[in-house]
């Protein structure tokens, strides 16, 4: 900072409250967590201060953890891809519609959040359960005699995730579509493109940053979850987050919990780095303009 070129302090005044908050509430706690990962867990809830790599060794050698990482990665990819396919078109619609109250369409997207997350997730049981709405209609129509099982499997978990995270995707894509010059597509058309070509050659590439930002958010949020699989999944549906929760809250083994947390953080960090290699991290906010 002591360089001779005039140092402008003004942005730092503006940044300091937010950075202080982050330093105090994120960085410091994470440092404490890192320290904890070297401790030894002697008994439930009893830790011994130490500097050893036992927890890390467990993590690297035990296939139980690797399996969970793989499952989590797989689930996050599935949810992200589906959310992208499901979310792009509505975002396109909102951006291009002539409907006067666009804000209403956007507000409607966040509306489900007002109903508590647990209640909202559990309400899928009312829809897809054996006595749920879908089976009710199918039986009423005589299409089936026996209710079809749809709950408590991977499918239900995916549905639950998409429902919760789709708004993040739609909003991100919408914002980047909204920023594209409206004349570009017609211009492409006059140059002889079919509507599909015009979309594919002009609009889609320009909206990619928004799509990427939305995908990153959905990916990260999915990979860090643990409640949805507990409520909607069967015995085989769990994510890395569930391991962390088990270690910290049920086994009261904070050193292992800290190790696992750090691992998740590190893996997600890699995803962010890869993302920023391709997109540049500033796209994450530019996409929203």
């Amino acid at each position, binding site marked *: 900072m002591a360089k001779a070129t005039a140092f402008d302090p003004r942005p730092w005044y503006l940044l300091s409250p937010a950075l202080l908050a982050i330093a105090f509430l994120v960085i410091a706690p994470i440092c404490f967590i890192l320290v904890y990962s070297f401790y030894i867990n002697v008994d439930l*809830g009893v830790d011994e201060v130490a500097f050893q790599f036992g927890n890390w060794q467990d993590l690297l050698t035990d296939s139980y953890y690797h399996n969970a990482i793989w499952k989590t990665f797989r689930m996050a990819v599935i949810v992200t891809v589906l959310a992208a396919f499901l979310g792009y078109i509505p975002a396109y619609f909102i951006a291009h519609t002539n409907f006067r109250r666009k804000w209403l369409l956007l507000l409607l997207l966040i509306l489900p959040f007002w109903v508590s997350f647990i209640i909202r997730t559990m309400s899928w049981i009312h829809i897809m359960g*054996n006595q749920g709405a879908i089976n009710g209609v199918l039986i009423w129509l005589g299409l089936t005699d026996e209710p079809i099982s749809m709950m408590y499997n991977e499918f239900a978990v995916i549905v639950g995730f998409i429902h919760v995270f789709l708004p993040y995707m739609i909003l991100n894509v919408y914002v980047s579509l909204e920023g594209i010059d409206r004349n570009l597509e017609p211009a492409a058309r006059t140059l002889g493109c079919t509507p599909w070509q015009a979309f594919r050659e002009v609009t889609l590439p320009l909206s990619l940053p928004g799509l990427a930002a939305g995908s990153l958010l959905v990916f990260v949020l999915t990979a860090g979850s643990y409640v949805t699989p507990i409520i909607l999944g069967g*015995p085989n549906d769990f994510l890395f987050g569930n391991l962390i929760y088990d270690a*910290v809250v049920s086994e009261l083994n*904070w050193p292992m919990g800290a190790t696992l947390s750090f691992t998740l953080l590190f893996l997600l960090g890699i995803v962010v780095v890869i993302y920023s290699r391709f997109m540049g991290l500033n796209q994450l906010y530019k996409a929203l303009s």
Partner: protein
Amino acid sequence: MKQDSTKRYEKLREVMGNGDIDRRSFMGLLGAAGLVAGVGGGIMTTLSRQALAAGTELHFEGWGGIVSEALRKNAFDPYEAKTGNSVIDATFGGEEEVLTKLKAAGSIDGHNIIHSSGIAWYKRWVDNGYASEINEKNIPNMANVMEAVLKPFRAVTPDHLSAAPYDYGTTGIAYNTKYVSEADAKAMGANLLLNKELKGKIGGWGGDWANRAWYGALQSGQDPNDITDWDAVWDKVREHRGLILKYWSSGAELMDLLAKEEIYVTEAWSGRVAALQAQGHPIGYFDPKNGLAWMETMFVLKGSPMAEAEELLNFMLAPETSIAVAEGQKYPPALDPSKVEMTDMVKGLPAFDPTGKLDGLVFRDPVKWNEVEKDQKKMWNRVKKGA
């Protein structure tokens, strides 16, 4: 903060007068300033109100819902009116959560009395150094508590109690009478949960390793309080896992799964089944041989104001309060039915023992179970995930 806002109004009005600011942004800023003043003021009043409140504060943490409503009405409010102390009641998601918080915070600040489950947790709190010493003379209503209930706790802490036993129940087997006959269910006992014909219609509690292991022991023909072959236990748990629709993790979920016929059989908490039966669902319930019984206590943490806590426990143990709570949560109270007249509703609850001796119930031996907990709990968390 208030002065600042006033100054800002003044400044703003000046600027307004000079015509520097248009009317709309003035109103906007005024609104923002008002918000800050209001919010700041609101917090200040709350804080000062807290500071002004006389008397001791007691923090109670329990399972919320019906239980806390009944306690609030029958115990906390009369206690506050009589003593001038205040009871702050909160809801927890489980005792692990409270222990996590206490450990992290390094003090019992904001925690005094906990609605704690079972002797195993009693021992855990004691082992972690949270055992208070209750003077039973200050709790006259303790005399009504069943001797059979007190005994195991006195075994853990011979010199004094750290908690007042409050209610008990069993974790038996629930089955849908439309699909499983009573005769079949009782004939199969704990193995009903391993019935291959019911694949995909079986449930199980995923929240507690010891509960799972208890049933694994029953299914592998061992005495649950003297397990010698843990591999056999976990093999049975794996077998069960392969047949179930899902592990439920809360009473709400258990009731939902049974009521909606997603599952036909599961082990279940007696009180939750009683609640389903009261609503007219065709759910039967029985305790298999050596079925699991448990009790809950009101545990007082070390460092709490004891005299006040004891008086509060006395209010909570009063027969009318205990019975009201029991009727709400559908678990019988720890009071001795031979000393206290119970209502018909309480008498009809599953697991209720009119003799007050609890001879038919088997509780967990805390010494045996706590010593293996660290390893076996880890094992369970893995088996649960298919390892």
